[in-house]
């Protein structure tokens, strides 16, 4: 039982890592990025190509892939999301949904339907483990991903709270017009925020590729887990994202213990329970709709 809980918490770290960029983008730019999962898979494929064709270890590959993802985020904001946002709140959702389809199918076109993994390129790390007291073994990679999630979430929090650019990004998310009146280049601030979000997606893609397998259409399920973790933890709250990831993963691992089918069912179940509890606490569906109006 304790073993299950520990493995669940560590898996939660991975969910928090993929949810970090999603909830950062939502809280800072008010954009729900439906291409989030597909972009993580894209990063995993980029690392795979570097490893397969150039013999670059996925860890070194991050030195190339993270700046590339950040640049992609910057351009995505400038040329797609910025325009979409000006057309209304729902348009960015449609735009990123379309982007997800484009990425998924381009990857399928380029790499075929084979299931891939980065685990062959990271030496023994994919199966090395640490023994905890009580005869419980935890994977070094899982622990590493969990620590990385905390570093990423903590880093985002510190950046937003204590740096002048972090303050500029927060100010822009609250009121872009006034932000430009105090001297902030609002378009630049959102583009930088988007670059940061996609750099975290690059890390999530690396974690995905190293700890599991992926194919061109893995993005949708990753998006779903990230979305569920973000909603359970309270979208937009940095530490809530970690808690949300852990709750989701605990439900999944405990569910899997009950029945092989329990993994996904329990995960979606806890998501729905938390979602309805939040709606109920907010005064019901009608109150939510009224507040929107």
């Amino acid at each position, binding site marked *: 039982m304790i073993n299950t809980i520990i493995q669940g918490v560590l898996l939660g770290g991975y969910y928090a890592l993929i949810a970090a960029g999603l909830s950062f983008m939502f809280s800072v730019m008010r954009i729900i990025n439906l291409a989030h999962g597909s972009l993580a898979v894209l990063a995993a494929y980029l690392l795979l190509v570097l490893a397969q064709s150039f013999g670059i270890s996925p860890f070194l590959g991050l030195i190339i892939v993270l700046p590339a993802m950040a640049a992609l985020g910057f351009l995505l904001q400038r040329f797609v999301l910025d325009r979409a946002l000006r057309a209304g709140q729902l348009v960015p959702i449609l735009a990123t949904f379309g982007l997800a389809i484009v990425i998924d199918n381009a990857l399928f076109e380029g790499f075929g339907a084979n299931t891939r993994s980065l685990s062959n390129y990271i030496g023994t790390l994919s199966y090395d483990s640490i023994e905890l007291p009580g005869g419980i073994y935890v994977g070094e990679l899982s622990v590493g991903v969990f620590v990385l999630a905390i570093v990423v979430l903590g880093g985002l929090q510190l950046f937003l709270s204590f740096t002048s650019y972090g303050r500029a990004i927060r100010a822009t998310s609250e*009121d872009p*017009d006034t932000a430009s*009146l105090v001297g902030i280049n609002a378009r630049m601030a959102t583009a930088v925020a988007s670059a940061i979000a996609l750099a975290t997606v690059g890390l999530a893609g690396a974690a995905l590729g190293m700890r599991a397998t992926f194919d061109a259409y893995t993005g949708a399920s990753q998006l779903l887990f990230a979305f569920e973790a973000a909603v359970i933890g309270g979208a937009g709250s940095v530490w809530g994202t970690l808690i949300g990831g852990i709750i989701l993963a605990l439900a999944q691992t405990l569910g899997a213990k009950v029945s092989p089918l329990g993994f996904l069912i329990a995960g979606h179940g806890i998501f729905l329970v938390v979602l309805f509890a939040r709606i109920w606490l907010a005064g019901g569906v009608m109150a939510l709709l009224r507040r929107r109006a």
Partner: protein
Amino acid sequence: MSALAVQGLNLHHGLLHAVRDVSFAVGNGEVVALVGANGAGKTTLLRAIAGAHRPTSGVIALDGKDIAHVPAHRRVGMGIALVPEGRKLFTQMTVEENLLLGRMARRPGPWTVEKVIETFPNLGPRRRAKTGTLSGGEQQATAIGRALMSNPSVLLLDEVSLGLSPIAVERLYESLRTLMQSGTTILLVEQDLGRAMRVASRVICMLEGRLVLEGSTTSLPREKITEAYFGSGHERAMA
């Protein structure tokens, strides 16, 4: 040379011709009051000078340089700061964070968080409070402080006394007095005509987007300003 000069400025909000062929100048260190009825175009004019609205035509010159096509965030670095109507603070952030945002343009000058708190002592104890929880007077002081933090050469104040208690207004103008005497160029919109006449050396009156009267506060009779303020004669009274 005047610190700020507006020449033949026109601005449209869709079909509304909000600012019509407005020209005026503000000298270095001068305090000028911009008065007029609601909807006369005062706020639009200030926001156009700050860069929040694009003028249809005309020149906005800062120290002789046309800035009409410079984006708002770069005008702050050139020395223009607007205290917007309704204060427009970042309510999720603290007083200190709001003040520090004023430094984003990195314009060198004397203003620091400490100096703003010295100027508006009521902010001292609220330094780490979220601005959403402040009183109106404290919010207005924060908004002015945030503008000052960018070390402006021209400060635009849009209805800083709006929604404040008479005591808070008194205290605010008390703090502003030192600022006005220190040689900062100020263009201010103020609903209270008496107060505008007291603090400014010159007054500009707008009516329906046009500049209808301009003169020194000491030489202009108050009746004349009131007349310009509401438009002259009977047709206005009938409407």
